[in-house]
Each structure stands twice: as C-alpha cells, then as structure tokens.
C-alpha cells in the first residue's frame, strides 16, 4: 500500500456546490447574441478548471518518463511515501480496474508498468498537502529505466525489422479507397508531389486541470475540463472498477480544446488519488506538462499523383498517406479514415486509388485536432491542383472550377454528393472579393512589413503573392457511429417570469454553444429568459464537442425537447382555454396567429413542464474493403484566398489578407460565426507558418509557448468573408457545422501565395524561412554552424543575394 492516510476515510469537505446557471436574455436563432460567458472571461472572473478550489483539498502531481522508449526495471516509491505532507503515491499496481484506456482501442496504460512508449508517459501519481510537496515527492520516486532506441518515425515503424511497440505490431490502421479503374486511367498530363505536415499542437491556453471529490460511499465526483463527459466517465469508471453511476462528471470552465481534450489526461489519476486519500484532489498541469499531457495533430508524409486531360479534367488521383500516430491510438482511426476519404478534395475524380496508413511510433501520441485528417490531405491535394494548373498552363481557380464536385455526383469513396455542395459557388465568391490594395513598400509602418517591428526590411526584396484553396470535411462522427445527443428542457415560472432551463452534457469549449442553446430555447418557446445548466453526466450523453457537430446534434436535441414542451403547453391551453386554432409562443405569451391568448406565466402557474429528447442523426455506414460506403453525415465546404508579402531574402512573411467564402447552411449567431471563422483561420495560419512541435528521436524540443510559436494578433490579417446560407434539409434550421472548414483550406491558400511570391516548391508545413529563402527544402536537423556542412550550403549572405 502506498499511502499514509487511512483508506476509505470520509471526505473532509462537503460535496462541491453545484454552480447556478446564469439567466440569459438571448436573441433568437439568427440574431446577434452576446455570449453569456464573454464578459466574465474578459474581466478575468470566469472560473476555469484550473481555478477550482475546495477547502481541505490535496494537490496531485504526475511522474512522467523522461525517455520515449524504455523498459522499467525497478520502481521504488518508498522515499516519497515517507515524506511529510505526502498523502498517497500510486503506481500501476494501484489501478483498481482496467489498467489501460482508450477512446477507440484500450491500449494506453493508466500508469506504465514494464515499458514506456513516449516521453512524458505517466508512471506514478502523488497527492500531497501542497503542490510543491507533491512536486518534490516526484523527485523521490526512484525509477530504473533500461533505455531503448525509439521508433522515431512512421517510416521506421513500417520496416520489417522495427521493434514491435504493441503486441500486434506497429500498424494501427490502413484504409484503402479504390474507385473506378485507376490502373488503366489515361491522362495527357500528370504531376507528382511529396508533401509533409509537421506536428501541430492545439495550443489551448487553459492547461489540463480537474478536481476529484470522493463521495464517501466509494464513488467520486469529477469536475473537469473536457470535450466529452460521458466517454470520460465510462473510461474512468472502468479503470476505477466502479459502475458508471458511481462516477459523476461536471464540466468546469474550459480554456480551449480543439481536439486536445477529447482524450483523457488526469481524469483517472485524480479520481484514484481522491478515492485513495478520501479527500478532494486537484490536478493542474503546467505549460510544459500540458505538451506531454494531450494528443497533437498527426504529422504525415504524403505522395500524390494527379492525372488530367489536356483541357484540365481530372482523370485520376493516386495517393499514399503515412501518418505518425505516436505511442497510443487515441482517435487515430478516425483521422486515418478522414484522410483517405478526403484525399481527392472536393473534385469529381473518376478514378482513384488512395491508401492511408496509421503507425505506432515512440513519438507523442496524436489524436483529434480541428479538421483531423482533412487538414493534412487538403494541403496535399490543393498543392497538387496548383502544380497541375501550372503544368496545364491554366489558372488555378479555373482548374478547380472545371473539376468542382456537384450534388448528385459520387465522391471517390462512393457516397453520393448531397445537396448543397457549393464548391463552384464558394470559389467564384472568393475570387470576386476585391483584392486588397497594394501599398507602396517604402515608408510603410514597420508593422505592415514582413518581419514587423523587428525592423529587418524597409521593402527591399519584398514580393506579393496570391494563392487559393478549397477544402471540405465531414460534420459529425462517421462510419456507422450513432453520435446522438440528449437535451432536457424545463419550462416554469421563476421570479414572476417564464424561464426555460436547458440541460445537456454538451461541452462548451469556447465556441459559443451555451449561447446557441439559449437562442434555440428562446426561438422555440418564445421566452425572454433562458438558463443553460452546467453540463454534467446527470443527463444523457451529448457526444463529443468535436467534428463541428454540437450545433447540429445538440442543437437538434434542444430543439426537439423544446418542441415537446411547447406541445404540452399548447395541450394545456386547448384543454383549459378551449383554443382550437394553431398556437404559437412569443414574448412570453401564447398567441393564436397574432391574437393574444394568455400570458405564458399564467398558463404554467406553479407547474414545471419538463421534457427530454434524444436526437439521432441519419444512419451512416462503415466503408467496405475498397473504401466505399455512405460513411459521412454532412459535408461543409470553404474556400480561401490568401494575399501575402514575403521578404524573399530573409524568408519573412506578412499575410496581408485572407478572403474566404463558406457555406454555413444558416447563420445561427453572426458574432459567433465570425469568431469561429477568424479563429479557424488563425489556426490555419499557424500551421502554414509557425506552429510545430519539434520532435527529435522521440523527444519534444519546444514544450513551451516561448519555443512553440503561435500567431498573435499582430500576425493575423484582415479577414473578409462571404457567407452562403444554403440550407441542409436534414439539419436543424438547415445549419452546417462551421468550426473546422476555416482551418482546413486557409493553410494551403497561404502556402500557395508563398509559392506565388517566391517560386519555391514549399512542400512542407509549417513553411520555415529557410524554405522561403530557397536555402533548404525542409528545416535542417541541426542549426548551421561555421564550418558545418549546413553553413557551407547556406553560404555568405552577399553570395546568396547574387543567385
């Protein structure tokens, strides 16, 4: 036993008080509606999960492997256990239930036992009276490792002689899409290219954090910042050896997610410590630990070949995509599937042969991130379309228009293209947006030149470039998974006025879902006041806040519950007031046409009308062995045009403007929509130019926001947008998910603009200055030093200038 307090002790603190839902006065669907969490966040009053506090709580900390690949020879916690103020030290032996977890494949140890497979893998956890005591206790845990050579890349993992990282080998998934007859497809022109995407981080600002509170009866309440409460609950319960109802989760303030919180971090650890000590335990990762504590965007290498007729019709696409999944599966299966199905882009391709491979390595585990799978594929297929346009002597936008997919056609994975699929329209829209005026370079404000206030150029060698890209992605989960959502709506009179209460388990991660739920309730029930209850597992699952799906699925569930409540109110009006015609609710009143019937408060009286609704979207299906099937629910499309200015000598970039056109089905809240589009573009810009977790031999070299470069407001250009509202007949209000498309094609548009400005091939993202300046096609493994081969290759500045 590795604890120095009695086990099974009653909690020393009462259960955490459930926060009250703030009452909103939202606008209707489609109206501008200020976010209920906006002002508290700006004022610093919003309670994020890292702010959670209870009297008497302990502080948890995690011992992590310093090695990406090693065998654990000995693990000794005795010194740590004896330290004053240390309340528990737990290892894999203390995991009461299943020792592994995983959203798709249970392959990840809660705490490592014989082997560690990535740098930062948890080995032991500690609870102590003070965070510093917990940290010092970690230093007292003795772990003897036998360090092994890491499998440092997906290509290495594929080799026959590579060490097997898991019992069944290193291949996690392979998806093949075979369409038409690619082996015999003829083309007048063909182009090939190899492309590479680096490991991007979600870079959310709120670190992983949570508070576990034992209930004194063997169960536990966990307050946690996550994207999917119910899948967390079920995994936690399984590893704790508890029934799901003994583990209750409540969403605490989430400081950004972008896929990085879809998987577990300290959920099981904090609950284990709380149950062991009988006291609340809070865990908060610091920034460096956060880089080890969540999954990242999959790096990948892609080989593409496109063939086309002389007049620019695509004849075939052949592609091979190899993803580095890192040490554990997380949601890699879905990424592999998405990449395979979106590899051809939103184009009509009569023949295709696509293979997507997902490999285990000793690199950090990768999983969900905004646009998962589609982001990587879009960079490659859009780069190829530009390359093909050049080979054909065509305008790149004209080539895209010539091949734009349309409703009624079939995607290469066999699914019929549903209506609306406005690829042509968004390309034409984005092209028609006036170009930004080209300003004189000389005499400009430094902030408007590449390099900004670093004062590195005054305009010499600065060139402008323009690039276009279009992308698409599935909304919601695919391939046969029923990612339903549940909503409970209660209508009553509080403080003399009708109030609708909405309760779901859907995670608000900053996208504005709480406001949207209130707008829907306001619209459907005609009430001025709405309170959205904190998300928790006391209501049925809402699925994950990912894949741009919550507005669609939870929006539909809230709408459905409101409709049921409304029908019960109408039933009462008909029964009690003898009304027979069609009724509506508006302005806290019951109306018949425009005629006032009764105040809603009077109809409700002291009663509560409560209804719960589940929304299940239409069925999807897994792909068959040739990668064919109706796998996806909904498709969202966006096009981007980037205008950049590049200092071609120093490789510095200023993105002047991003223009975009996106079909959103229905603008639910204009302010939120603009925020999603601008935020998505910022993340796309980051991937194009800045953001990469540098991993060498399995070790992360830049686990800080000093070294992991993020775009700031100074890097963000003006964004001009043309929004299409082409209603999806199957979706609530006709809406489409909007969160991911802005990220997907903004990146290749920026890179296309860089190519236009520099003439460099730029086949790897993020694009680094040395690629832009033509020094190297990819970042050097080591920084060049005088006398090194790299230094000689770069040469002296004045010599380079002459080339």
């Amino acid at each position, binding site marked *: 036993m590795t604890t120095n307090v009695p086990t099974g002790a009653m909690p020393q603190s009462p259960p955490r008080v459930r926060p009250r839902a703030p009452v909103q006065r939202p606008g209707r669907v489609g109206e501008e509606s200020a976010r209920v969490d906006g002002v508290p966040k700006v004022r610093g009053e919003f309670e994020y999960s890292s702010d959670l506090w209870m009297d008497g709580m302990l502080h948890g900390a995690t011992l992590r492997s310093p090695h990406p690949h090693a065998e654990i020879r000995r693990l000794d916690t005795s010194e740590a256990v004896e330290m004053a103020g240390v309340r528990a030290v737990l290892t894999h032996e203390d995991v009461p239930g299943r*020792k592994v977890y995983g959203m*798709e494949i*249970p392959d990840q*140890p809660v705490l490592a036992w014989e082997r560690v497979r990535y740098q930062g893998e948890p080995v032991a956890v500690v609870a102590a009276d003070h965070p510093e005591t917990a940290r010092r206790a970690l230093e007292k845990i003795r772990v003897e490792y036998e360090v092994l050579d890491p499998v440092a890349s997906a290509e290495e993992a594929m080799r026959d002689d590579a060490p097997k990282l898991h019992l*069944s080998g290193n291949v996690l998934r392979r998806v093949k899409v075979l369409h038409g007859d690619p082996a015999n497809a003829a083309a007048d022109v063909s182009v090939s290219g190899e492309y590479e995407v680096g490991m991007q981080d979600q870079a959310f600002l709120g670190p992983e954090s949570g508070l576990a509170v034992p209930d004194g009866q063997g169960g536990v309440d966990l307050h946690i910042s996550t994207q999917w409460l119910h*899948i967390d609950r079920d995994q936690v319960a399984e590893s704790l050896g508890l029934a799901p109802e003994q583990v209750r989760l409540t969403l605490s303030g989430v400081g950004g997610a972008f896929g990085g919180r879809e998987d577990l971090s300290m959920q099981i650890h904090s609950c284990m410590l709380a149950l062991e000590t009988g006291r609340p335990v809070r865990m908060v990762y610091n920034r460096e630990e956060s880089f080890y504590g969540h999954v990242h965007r999959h790096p990948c290498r892609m080989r593409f070949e496109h063939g086309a007729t002389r007049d620019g019709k695509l004849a075939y696409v052949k592609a091979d995509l190899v993803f580095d999944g890192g040490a554990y599966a997380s949601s890699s299966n879905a990424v592999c599937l998405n990449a395979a199905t979106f590899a051809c882009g939103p184009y009509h391709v009569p023949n295709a042969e696509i293979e997507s491979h997902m490999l285990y390595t000793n690199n950090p585990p990768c999983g969900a991130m905004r646009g998962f799978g589609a982001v990587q594929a879009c960079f490659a297929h859009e780069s190829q379309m530009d390359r093909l346009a050049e080979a054909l002597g065509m305008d790149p936008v004209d080539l895209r228009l010539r091949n734009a997919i349309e409703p009624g056609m079939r995607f290469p994975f066999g699914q019929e293209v549903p209506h609306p699929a406005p690829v042509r329209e968004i390309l034409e829209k984005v092209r028609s947006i006036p170009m930004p005026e080209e300003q004189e370079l000389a005499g400009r404000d430094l902030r408007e030149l590449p390099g900004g206030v670093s004062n590195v150029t005054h305009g010499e060698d600065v060139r402008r470039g323009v690039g276009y890209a279009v992308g698409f992605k599935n909304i919601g989960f695919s391939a046969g998974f*029923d990612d*339903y959502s549940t909503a409970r709506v209660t209508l009553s009179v509080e403080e003399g006025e009708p109030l609708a209460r909405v309760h779901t388990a859907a995670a608000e991660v900053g996208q504005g879902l709480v406001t949207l739920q209130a707008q829907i309730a306001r619209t459907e029930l005609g009430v001025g006041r709405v309170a959205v209850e904190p998300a928790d597992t006391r209501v049925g699952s809402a699925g994950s806040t990912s894949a741009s799906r919550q507005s669609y699925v939870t929006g539909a569930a809230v709408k459905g519950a409101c409709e049921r409540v409304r029908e019960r109110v109408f039933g009462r009006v008909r029964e009690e007031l003898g009304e027979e015609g069609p009724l509506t609710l508006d302005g806290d009143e019951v109306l018949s046409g425009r005629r006032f019937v009764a105040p809603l408060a009077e109809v409700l009286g002291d009663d509560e009308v409560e209804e719960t609704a589940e929304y*299940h979207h239409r069925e*999807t299906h897994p792909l068959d062995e040739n990668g064919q099937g109706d796998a996806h629910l909904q498709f969202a499309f966006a096009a981007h045009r980037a205008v950049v200015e590049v200092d071609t000598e120093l490789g510095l970039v200023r993105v002047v403007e991003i223009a975009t056109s996106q079909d959103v089905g229905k603008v639910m809240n204009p302010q939120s929509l603009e925020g999603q589009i601008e935020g998505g573009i910022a993340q796309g810009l980051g991937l194009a130019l800045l953001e990469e977790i540098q991993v060498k031999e399995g070790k992360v070299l830049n686990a800080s926001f000093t070294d992991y470069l993020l775009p700031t407001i100074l890097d963000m250009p003006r964004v001009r947008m043309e929004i299409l509202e082409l209603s999806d007949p199957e979706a609530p209000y006709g809406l489409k998910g909007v969160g991911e498309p802005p990220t997907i094609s903004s990146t290749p548009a920026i890179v296309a603009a860089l190519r236009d400005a520099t003439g460099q091939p730029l086949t790897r993202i993020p694009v680094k200055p040395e690629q832009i300046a033509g020094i190297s096609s990819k970042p050097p493994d080591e920084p060049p030093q005088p006398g090194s081969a790299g230094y000689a290759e770069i040469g002296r500045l004045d010599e380079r200038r002459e080339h």
Partner: protein
Amino acid sequence: MPGYERAELTAELKVLLSGGDGSRAEIEAAKTAAGDTGLAHEAGPETMVLAGGRGEVLDAVTRVVGAALDAGAGGVELKIEAQGDAPRFGKQG
C-alpha cells in the same frame, strides 16, 4: 465501453503463473500468440486485451489460452465484454 468505432467484443486475459521460480515464459507465450492474432494490446503485466469482431475475438481467445497452457500456465482468467453500450445504428436500446 462506449466510444467511437469501438470493437464489438473485447476479451481480457490474465495469465496465472504456475510456479514461484520467477519465470514468465507462460506470459511471453501468451503475448506472442496474442500478438499474432492482430487484435492484441497489453493491459497489465500479466494481462492482455483482444478487441475486434465477435468471431475473430472468440477464435483468438482459444489460441491465446492454448498457448499459455501449453507453456505451463496454471490458468488463465478470462473476462469477455460485449460492447453493448457502444451505440451503433439500429442497435441502440
């Protein structure tokens, strides 16, 4: 366990060592057999999980248990779970 694209069936096998000589040959034999099925992951020092379709998991279980017993294991603890709470279309309760 619910989840996105979770397996239809999982089988957790814990190999019970036969003697106190510190030999783990039974476990290694079981791990090798499990690995060969293409369905396996480690789930503890003596434990592995097989996950996949019903038929392939049940078939794999026979082979892994056989390998462990052939190598001298004193027994194999087996826990099989149907992923009934992983909702698939047309199958939710």
